[in-house]
């Protein structure tokens, strides 16, 4: 029996979560720049507060513009719903705070974005939550690190900085055998390159600031629930499966069979921690999501050309990209990321710090800044910027050398990018 027709990725990117405005017929998503919403009467107000009716009360908890973006990302990821947050970091914090208490423990990949690593290594221990970091390529290490108080397994679909490809199906299997959910940071891959729920992940978050927005104008995060994890059966999540005094004794897993996690995250996490997204940012990020498919396609086309160019260049020691046979996750990438391994990668330049400095300063199209996932091509030299205090040994421990250059490939004309790169490489090698 053939599958029924459903809307495809690019159609959902443009339409999911939004109907034309009923009052004026506006085709674009209106920006509901309001803190609050007028109640028709007191009973209606009480019903909204008590989750007897659907709607909005206060924009810290929900907002119609944010809601459209939340639905859209949930549709693209194949989840049951989502919550928009002030940043990707806020989304990660919301997931953790919803699932655990002081005394809980996380097992995380050690190949993480610095912000996530800081949260887990330095900040969460102050609140009684510890993390064990493991090599993401060592599946047994995830299993071995699980303790009775572990409540979450966490990794990035493409790790930082070595682009370790997380074996989502196998790590999910380890997590589920222990009655734990797998949360993945899918920022580098977006739902265009990987849909982690289809591979076994339970929760996804994005720094929407990056590829989802694509324009580099709005900070935001999105936390998505796959709706498959059985919180009751696990027995490890009383925040979801036992009465919550903070909301009329609500048992979230009874209230919603598939979206208990999101219910608590919104009704407690957004209410109490308050790291909500501005509706203006939600609108701006939605403009980016509308063109996610065509942009990611172009990002990947350009990345492949530049990876090939650099891989063959005399001034380059080596390129770190999973589509290259030299990458340790090459075979896994072919399986999990057949449409591309993202547009952020690093390469090692011959000539160390001095060459790196010359290379960066000779570029004209690439922008030298500390961000990734913009439609414009970006570059940074970690040894002279983000990691400039480190000596050679400390850099090596972080997986970086004095010649490491990180690129985020944009969607400009590939020939212009190649010419820019060629000129800068020549300049970097002049003594």
């Amino acid at each position, binding site marked *: 029996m053939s599958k029924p027709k459903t809307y495809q990725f690019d159609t959902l990117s443009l339409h999911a979560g939004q109907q034309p405005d009923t009052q004026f017929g506006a085709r674009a998503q209106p920006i509901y720049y309001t803190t609050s919403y007028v109640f028709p009467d007191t009973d209606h107000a009480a019903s909204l507060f008590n989750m007897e*009716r659907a709607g909005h009360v206060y924009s810290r908890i929900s907002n119609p513009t944010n809601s459209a973006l939340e*639905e859209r990302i949930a549709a693209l990821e194949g989840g049951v719903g989502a*919550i928009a947050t002030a940043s990707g970091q806020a989304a990660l914090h919301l997931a953790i705070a919803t699932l655990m208490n002081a005394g809980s423990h996380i097992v995380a990949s050690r190949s993480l974005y610095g912000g996530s690593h800081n949260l887990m290594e330095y900040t969460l221990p102050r609140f009684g939550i510890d993390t064990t970091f493991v090599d993401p390529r060592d599946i047994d290490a995830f299993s071995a690190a699980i303790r009775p108080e572990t409540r979450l397994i966490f990794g990035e679909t493409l790790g930082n900085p070595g682009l370790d490809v997380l074996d989502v199906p196998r790590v999910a299997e380890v997590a589920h055998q222990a009655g734990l959910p797998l949360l993945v940071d899918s920022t580098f891959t977006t739902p265009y390159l990987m849909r982690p729920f289809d591979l076994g992940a339970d929760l996804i978050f994005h720094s929407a600031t990056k590829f989802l927005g694509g324009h580099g104008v709005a900070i935001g995060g999105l936390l998505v629930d796959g709706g498959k994890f059985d919180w009751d059966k696990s027995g490890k999540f009383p925040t979801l499966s036992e009465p919550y005094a903070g909301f009329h004794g609500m048992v979230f897993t*009874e209230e919603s*069979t*598939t979206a208990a996690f999101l219910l608590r995250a919104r009704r407690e996490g957004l209410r109490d921690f308050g790291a909500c997204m501005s509706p203006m940012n939600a609108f701006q990020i939605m403009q980016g999501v509308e063109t996610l498919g065509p942009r990611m396609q172009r990002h990947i086309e350009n990345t492949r050309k530049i990876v090939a160019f650099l891989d063959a260049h005399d001034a380059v020691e080596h390129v770190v990209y999973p589509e290259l046979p030299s990458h340790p996750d090459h075979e896994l990438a072919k399986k999990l990321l057949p449409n591309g391994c993202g547009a952020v990668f690093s390469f090692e330049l011959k000539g160390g710090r001095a060459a790196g400095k010359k290379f960066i300063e000779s570029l004209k199209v690439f922008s030298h800044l500390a961000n990734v996932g913009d439609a414009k091509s970006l570059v940074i030299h970690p040894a002279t910027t983000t990691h400039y205090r480190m000596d050679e040994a400390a850099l090596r421990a972080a997986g970086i050398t004095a010649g490491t250059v990180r690129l985020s490939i944009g969607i400009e004309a590939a020939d212009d990018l190649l010419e820019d790169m060629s000129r800068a490489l020549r300049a970097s090698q002049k003594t």
Partner: protein
Amino acid sequence: MLLTVNGQKAYAYTAGHTFDSSLPTVLFIHGAANDHSVWALQSRYFAYHGWNALAVDLPGHGRSEGEPLSSVGELAAWIGKLMDTAGVTRTALVGHSMGSLVALETATHDPDRISRVAMIGTAIPMPVTDALLSTSQANDHVAYEMINVYSHSARAQIGGNRVPGAWIMGSAIRLMERTGPGVLHTDFTACNDYENGLDAATKVKCPFLLVLGQRDLMTPPRSAAKAVENFVDAKTIVLDGTGHSLMSEQPDAVLDSLIEFLKVEQTAPA
């Protein structure tokens, strides 16, 4: 609320309230491969507005133990036993899809205890296509996918949900996936084989409300027309642009229609 029916655990959502025999009762019955949570907003409203609201999980669904029951008659008998166990002496019934047939049949079996019946997204009879019967019998995931598409209007397949951040196409299929192998097929067979509906409609004297989705492909409004003629006392509401998943597509419209239909009971003696 956990009860024991036929020696097995039976669950009914009550919004955390204990049963109060001094209050009127409304009992919600879900459809095929669903559970109590499809009534989350509507049942919670009644539980906080002077009612005992019981949104049951039928056997083999959600939190209720046991195998799914293979006929509407057996399901109606089970509802009767659940009411006995819960101490329900009189109740209104609200059923969706398969649950609407169970509500009708329960009213036939137990007319003295049933005050009113609301049938949401219903058809009498309720034939199921061969494609859905065969794919569900094979436990083929395509059965869930077909239902998901046929159960939502074109508008709902795009979204714009009133519930903040909820993607109802995703939650609907996840809910079906949670039912065990064979449950969907057993439910569909019960719907397909139920032949007593039109006859029952002529016999039950209590007021009926039919809430139908204008764009419902699973139970199109025309499929309820004959039954409407047979009912002694029935009112029909058709929700514009709405598919079969009325409670999620139009939660407030469904709730408002129930509030209006049931308000008489709230002033009647329990």
